């Protein structure tokens, strides 16, 4: 049983070399101790590797995740280390991938599957909405769905059509799915491990423009944190404290919000930035505490604004913090137009300027 060999049965030099390199580099990272400079890609990769080491029922599959290590290399080296039984390529069919994962979850596995890009998860929509989200409920918990569906999402990388959708609102609106989206390298590790541990299905939305963002991260400390059971689910992070207004952001918009807050600070305005982290469940407490404190808020997201997660954040915050609000809560989101071509995405995406404009409109004169 050899899927790494070519038709005529010989494994070729360059192919096996690539595989060996991947395995070696994975091992090197894994063994490093103390703070090191790591990309989000590597943090996610390490999280999967650690989970697979700890639990033989964790499987990774999808399109091109095996030999190639995924088009973003997030699964790089996993096939080499864990074998083609635990990390493998499937035929090219997303409903098939998710549907097969449902069966695997029913039968004792913990599948971690990759949708190659946001818009290519749509063929699996029925499986996700009608089964992944509902199986636990309809069987009164008799069948659990410990499944992670990884979705590289959103724009900012000059991708062509169908490669840049912000699809998180579809999933957040679906009862029965949890929706995580990390914005920092450390959260990449933390949250993916928590997602894999979870007995609930998690739509794990990976901001693809942050894959190559780097941070000083101590993997040993993160592993210890994980083993101690520290949880980020339902816990928003105060990414930057401030007093005058609150920027509420998640995933790819967190760095933009932080940049806006830095720029505002230069002009003497102190903005607090909240990184929502898990959209479902949502951390009402942290978010509302901030808005009650500042009295003003802007919600930032790349997705189309209409009927979205950002609408929800506005709706729940105005409901819970109404009498603390000095101005309406504003939104800076993607426009309600199809995600544009590479040369136009700049005009579509929430930007520092657009955020600062919105902050300026928060009726400071009153």
């Amino acid at each position, binding site marked *: 049983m050899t899927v790494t060999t070519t038709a005529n049965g010989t494994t070729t030099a360059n192919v096996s070399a690539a595989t060996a390199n991947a395995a070696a580099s994975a091992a090197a990272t894994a063994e490093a101790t103390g703070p090191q400079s790591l990309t989000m890609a590597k943090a996610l990769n390490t999280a999967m590797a650690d989970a697979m080491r700890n639990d033989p029922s964790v499987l990774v599959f999808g399109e091109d995740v095996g030999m190639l290590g995924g088009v973003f290399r997030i699964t790089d080296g996993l096939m080499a280390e864990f074998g083609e039984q635990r990390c493998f390529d499937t035929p090219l069919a997303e409903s098939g991938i998710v549907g097969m994962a449902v069966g695997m979850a029913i039968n004792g596995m913990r599948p971690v599957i990759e949708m190659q890009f946001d818009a290519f998860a749509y063929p699996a929509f029925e499986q996700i909405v009608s089964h992944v989200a509902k199986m636990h409920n309809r069987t009164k918990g008799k069948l659990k769905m410990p499944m992670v569906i990884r979705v590289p999402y959103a724009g900012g990388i000059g991708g062509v059509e169908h490669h840049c959708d912000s699809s998180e609102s579809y999933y957040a609106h679906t009862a029965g799915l*949890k929706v995580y989206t990390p914005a920092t390298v450390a959260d990449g590790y933390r949250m993916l491990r928590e997602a894999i541990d979870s007995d609930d299905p998690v739509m794990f939305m990976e901001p693809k423009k942050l894959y190559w963002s780097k941070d000083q991260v101590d993997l040993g400390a993160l592993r210890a944190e994980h083993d101690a059971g520290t949880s980020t689910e339902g816990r928003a992070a105060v990414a930057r404290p401030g007093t005058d207004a609150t920027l509420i952001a998640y995933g790819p918009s967190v760095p933009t919000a932080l940049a806006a807050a830095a720029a505002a600070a230069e002009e003497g305005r102190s903005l607090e930035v909240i990184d929502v982290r898990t959209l479902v469940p949502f951390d009402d407490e942290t978010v509302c505490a901030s808005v009650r404190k500042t009295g003003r808020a802007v919600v930032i997201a790349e997705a189309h604004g209409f009927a979205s997660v950002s609408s929800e954040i506005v709706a729940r915050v105005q409901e819970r913090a109404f009498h603390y609000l000095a101005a309406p809560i504003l939104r800076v989101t993607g426009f309600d137009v199809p995600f544009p071509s590479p040369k136009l995405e700049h005009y579509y995406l929430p930007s520092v300027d657009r955020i600062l404009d919105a902050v300026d409109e928060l009726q400071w004169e009153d």
Partner: protein
Amino acid sequence: MTIHADHSAPETAVEDHAADVRTKFGISVEDYMLPARHQIQMVNPDGSLRSHDEQGTEPGHEYPTPSDAELMAAYEQLVVGRRVNDQNSALVRQGRMAVYPSSHGQEACQVAAAMCLSEGDWLFPTYRDAVAVMTRGVDPVEVMTIFRGDWHGGYDPKEHNVGIQCTPLTTQLLHAVGVAHAAKLRGEDTVVMAMCGDGATSEGDFHEALNFAAVFHLPVIFFVQNNKYAISVPLSHQSVAPSLAHKAVGYGMAGERVDGNDLVALLAVMDRAVKLAREGSGPLLIEAHTYRMQAHTNADDATRYRPDSEVAEWQAKDPLARMKSYLTDKGLLDDEATNRIAEHAEAVATQLREGLGEDVPVQPLDLFKYVFAKPTPQLKEQSELLASELAREESAK
């Protein structure tokens, strides 16, 4: 995972004799995949046994004959299944059940699909396969919970290894593939029976499931009950292939056709299929020719789209009458056995009437209890809202 196939194209007629040599079970690959030209039929509608050369078998398609004990046990389930179908339809008319998609006329398929499996195997049924689910051992009242409307499902799939009765068409075939794949990765010899209807074969998930099963070489039996209609749409609008079994070819899989109203043939074909699958020969597609004798569900009006004469034609091929004559002629079924079986069927019907007759009070707060394994603060809040509404209603009484 096993991925078989040599896709290097045979380039020329001259160089390439290799293609002819690729064989399975001693016949060419194409002959292996193509269904026998005829459906397998062992017993005539009048109950008489067909001679071997009239049974439709061809080289590479040879079937073991079911044992007498197996035949009698299957017949008993057949009678029970028919009784259950008719009891449920009555309960619907009495307003005790919201809806029931009856498998009246298809009970031989239902019984065979469940009986050919061993304990550790899995069954993935549709909404119409309640009788198969029961035959597998699930409590009849639990099976019907979904149709009474108390909850979306009433049984624990893990108790008897039976998936939920699935409504979104052919989605369950992929779940079957996943269960088989997980078992195979652990080295277990689980066989998975994946059921769907003729209409459902048009859905994309049908294609993806068969292909995944074939590529990963999994022990899944895809069992299509071709009952000629998808609600009002006849098979001719669904497919123009010579048969649905021919769809196997596109996946490098073998396809078979069997008389779905002939329990003897069904058992023979299904027992062989399970044996082959368990031994590692990969997935199989079986098409059973049967007929949906009643409307799609009680909500449907079949007279709008099909003639009574067609229904009458199929009435004459009823699986029960046929099996009864056959077993009687064979000297296996006597009055005593007939009575015992009838009593068994009646007992199950009583169980259903009683179980579904009771009005089990629903638990509104259950709405929130099972959405997640680890609950969210949002659902806790919503649950409290409903609880306080209920408390106020209660105190207002």
